[in-house]
């Protein structure tokens, strides 16, 4: 080793891709024609078909408040991601746009993103900011032509268990409850094969 000082002292350039602080905080005044639908705080059955999508875990009597990690994740019997699709050219965005970054048109519609996909790129993050549990697998998943950024979950975080081209499917997990008892639900993609084998 020797010539590379410890990371604590710092010697590697590890800048953030984007800074949340720089993001707009305010809700938009939309120039577009569609209505923004947020999933908000809604009642869903406990269990919400996480890893294997079975519905028998759903405790109908055990309804709890749930909120999705991000507003483009929708729960229900079949959790899925939603995108804002340009009505003219079909370009999809997970956040809001005033005009399409591809064609410049201003009409958008909310569409469902395929839950099955293929891993087009991944990394296994072993060193991250304080508070981020490592290792974890970050990936770019091609969901029937729509690129989705997500973690791969329900898989060992090592190069022997994760591969390029691996078939995956959307899965959800709990981030825990807040002080009001509301449970936050996140998403990731899990291997299709492991799921099938598990049946």
């Amino acid at each position, binding site marked *: *080793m*020797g010539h*590379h000082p410890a*990371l604590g*002292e*710092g*010697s*590697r*350039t*590890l*800048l*953030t*891709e*984007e*800074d*949340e*602080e720089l*993001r*707009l*905080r305010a809700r938009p005044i939309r120039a577009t024609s569609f209505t923004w639908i*947020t999933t908000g705080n809604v009642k869903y059955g406990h269990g919400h078909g996480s890893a294997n999508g079975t519905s028998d875990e759903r405790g109908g009597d055990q309804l709890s408040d749930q*909120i*999705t*990690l*991000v*507003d*483009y994740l929708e729960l229900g019997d079949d959790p899925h991601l939603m995108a804002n699709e340009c009505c003219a050219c079909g*370009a999809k*965005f*997970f*956040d809001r746009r005033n005009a399409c*970054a*591809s064609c410049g048109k201003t009409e958008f519609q909310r569409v469902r993103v395929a839950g099955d996909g293929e891993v*087009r*790129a991944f*990394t*296994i*993050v*072993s*060193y*991250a*900011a304080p508070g*981020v549990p*490592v290792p974890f697998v*970050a*990936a*770019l998943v091609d969901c029937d*032509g729509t*690129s*989705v*950024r*997500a*973690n791969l979950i329900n898989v060992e975080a090592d*190069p022997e268990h994760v591969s390029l081209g691996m078939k995956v499917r959307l899965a959800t997990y709990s*981030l825990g409850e*807040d*002080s009001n008892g*509301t449970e*936050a639900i*996140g998403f990731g993609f899990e291997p299709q094969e492991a799921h099938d084998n598990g049946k």
Partner: protein
Amino acid sequence: MANDDVWILGIHMTKFGKHPDLDVVDLAAEAAMGALNDGGVGIKDMGVLAAGCLMMASAGIGQQLQKQIGQTGIPVYNVANACATGATALRTVIMAVRAGECDMGLAVGVEKLSGAGLLSGGSRKSDDDTWTRHGRYGAVAPVDGRIGTETMPGVFAQIGMEYGHKYGGTSFELFARISEKNHSHSTLNPLASYSKAMSLEQIMGDMMIAYPNTRPMCSANCDGAAAAVIVSDAKLRTLDPDQRRRAVKVSASVLTSDPWEESCQVLPDVNTLTRNAAKLAYEQAGVGPEDLDLVELHDCFATAELVHYDNLMLCPVGGAVDFFESGATWRDGSKPVNVSGGLESKGHPIAATGIANVWEVAHHLRGEAGDRQIEGATVGLAHVIGLGSACGVHILEKAAS
């Protein structure tokens, strides 16, 4: 007859590394004075100043530099363009000179990053007491580490892996061998932050940051500055023969941003804008990749260097792995890449990088690169990319006489 050509009259880079006793103004001044001295001119000859310091983007580094080395009242442009900040400063001066606003100008990039460590995970703060939606995606909790990664080593790891998925042939070892090359090259560069060779075993066995990038495969945080004096063709003709002989022609100066691509919404696409910049630069310069004697490209991570072989058209589309395997990019190969040691060894003081790589190429074209001289170099290319994205490409040529 004078023409629209612009030239680098003087250029300088400081030692990259730790400068605990110098602040950014000191470093910028050292680079600026060095470039002026190298060109045989003074601050009073400059008609424009463009300066960048990304970590202090709102501090007015240009005006601070003027107070340190000479306040002459000229226009100052403080620029910020991620890792392309230095190239943007350089191009700003080139544009001003080309536009005829002045016949000489100074571009400076400076950064202090020693000890900066992991500047990552911008969105990851501690969870709130209650889940409340924030920001553009209505996130109730920080998403770094929950929805992919925001750290640069992880982002660029995926960029290299995506290339591997598309064309095949990549592996942890392949990326590590690119790093091995650059660390080997750095042993000949006294201005590099790190100038020790590293074996493949050392590189692969070092601390894993984001697979397949281990620590020595990441660019090195360090302090440093670089500066260049740009002169018009007409002005150059009035200067001394020795100044003319050492002047380096700027055959192409290009800056691009991302055109829309489907995947760049979720993973930065460093490929399209780099290829676009390269195409435009080759057109402007009237040279092709085959004419380049050396290339300094933005190896912010070992995984990035591979994709830029392809983006800069140094190899056929999809052929970057074979190109590297051929040995072409080693300093004794047919297309030496990053003979300075690259960002992985030389270091990456962000805003300085886009001028320091031009310094490296210019040094070879002048035949002044000492032990690491690429013999007979007449044409070279310098490339940087800043995420977001901005890509700068400069093609430089040796003076005719």
